[in-house]
């Protein structure tokens, strides 16, 4: 490893930044949705207040839950937070110490998803089991496609390390001109997958607790107090990590490579801009589409699959 790579403290700082900023993105999306529905809506800081409230409360859990159930929220939060360390925020470039690459990131997110489902089954609630089975039906449709989108970019750059990949793309000053045919299709696939991966309409509905429609929320029903707080914080973090993955793969505009404090600030500003644009896209999609029936979800995700596979084919052939 060369000494010129990104220092580890910077990566840990980026991780902390993502975890702290995660609820804010959710707040912004909810605010935009409320405005689009002509409501005033809660402030953008509402998710923080919810978290603070939950962490002050006591825990109640079902008698049938095992000891593992109590560990699930912490493990889920830990896996998601570890994934956050792999996303470039402030600066791109090969790291001094390899923490992990994009495949590791997707693996950690899959692990968090698996633990959530196991926890839901463990508590023995009917809704938890239903939510888990639905989530496990949708997950195998999302994860391989995300993997293919990552590969279609990685083949081009010759690395799956996200920071190095972002730096490779950031080498051009004009990124849209540098987009190749496969990038358009890969980005299209990503836009199709984004609502599914972040658990939003048209695949899942984050606002409802109606038993027939829940995927992710159904699995959280048995958790309470600090445990629920951890699960919510994990899902906020998961959302911002996914958005960060998209921005690292397709728009690393802000990663200027400038050194010093100004470079870091510029990187942070550009990252915030990109994430806000993607959040706006999510809010618009959520406001303009209805939730799909569960059995309509596979054809919808199939569009993403076809786009991703075509992108990969364009890159290879």
């Amino acid at each position, binding site marked *: 490893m060369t000494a010129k790579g990104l220092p580890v403290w910077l990566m840990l700082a980026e991780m902390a930044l993502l975890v702290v900023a995660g609820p804010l993105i959710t707040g912004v999306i909810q605010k935009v949705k409320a405005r689009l529905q002509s409501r005033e809506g809660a402030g953008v800081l509402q998710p923080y207040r919810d978290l603070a409230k939950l962490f002050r409360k006591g825990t109640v859990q079902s008698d049938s839950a095992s000891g593992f159930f109590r560990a699930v929220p912490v493990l889920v939060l830990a896996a998601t937070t570890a994934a956050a360390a792999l996303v470039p925020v402030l600066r791109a470039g090969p790291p001094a110490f390899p923490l992990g690459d994009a495949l590791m990131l997707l693996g950690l997110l899959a692990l968090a998803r698996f633990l959530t489902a196991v926890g839901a089954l463990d508590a023995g609630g009917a809704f938890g089991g239903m939510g888990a089975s639905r989530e496990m039906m949708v997950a195998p449709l999302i994860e391989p496609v995300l993997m293919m989108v990552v590969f279609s970019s990685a083949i081009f750059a010759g690395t799956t390390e996200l920071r190095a990949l972002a730096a490779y793309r950031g080498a051009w000053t004009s990124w849209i001109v540098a987009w190749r*045919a496969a990038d*358009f299709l890969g980005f299209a696939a990503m836009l199709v997958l984004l609502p599914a991966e972040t658990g939003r309409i048209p695949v899942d509905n984050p606002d409802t607790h109606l038993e027939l429609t829940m995927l992710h929320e159904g699995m959280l029903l048995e958790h309470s107090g600090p445990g629920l707080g951890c699960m919510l914080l994990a899902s906020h973090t998961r959302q911002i990590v996914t958005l960060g993955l998209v921005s690292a793969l397709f728009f690393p505009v802000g990663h200027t490579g400038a050194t010093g404090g100004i470079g870091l600030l510029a990187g942070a500003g550009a990252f915030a801009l990109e994430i806000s644009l993607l959040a706006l896209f999510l809010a618009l999609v959520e406001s303009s589409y209805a939730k799909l029936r569960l059995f*309509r979800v*596979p054809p919808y995700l199939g569009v993403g699959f076809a786009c991703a596979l*075509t992108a990969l084919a364009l890159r290879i*052939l």
Partner: protein
Amino acid sequence: MSPEVVQTIIDDLGALLLFTMILILAAGQIYRAIYAVATQSFLIAVAGAVLATATGNPDLWVIAGVTLTVKTMVLPFVLHRVVQRLNVRREVEPVIPVGATLAIAVVVVVMSFQLSATLGSVHQAITGNALPVGISLTLLGVLVMATGQTALTQMVGLFASENGIFFTAMAVTQGMPLIIEIGVILDVILAALVMAIMVLRVRSTVDADIADLDELRG
């Protein structure tokens, strides 16, 4: 514009054309398929304009203009009117499920790229990836025609097929003679009008659709 830039733009447009084709294949409602095919024709017109500036061939400007007016505005408008007159809200389920259709689509795209890679000299005479993209669009248009249950879906498939042929023809280095392109466009307009009238007439006289016509009664 340098040849490399033109090639990049044509490749990018080809990717977007494939994307619109995937949307047509997956469209649950006929409205979406119509919008997707209109977008596809618009992209074809853009490709025509790009190639016209690159080669300085005035025929291509004419073709791009005709594509823009006829295929992105008039024909989708006609289809839209037919949909409104028929008052169909949603499409009948295709013969094979959407997931299988998309899988077939990916296979077709990969095979046409593989095929065009083996056609060395032909491939060189055509800018960028226009040949494989054109082949895929044509075949997938046929797929839409084969699997759609309503006459409207089949019309959309015909337009998509025709777009594929057009895209390849434009990107041939020398360009196709103008008279042939105009002839093809006229054919498509006539086909669309005849089909539109047929669909409306059949619906108004016997109240049946293509899907109901697969059984012979003696």
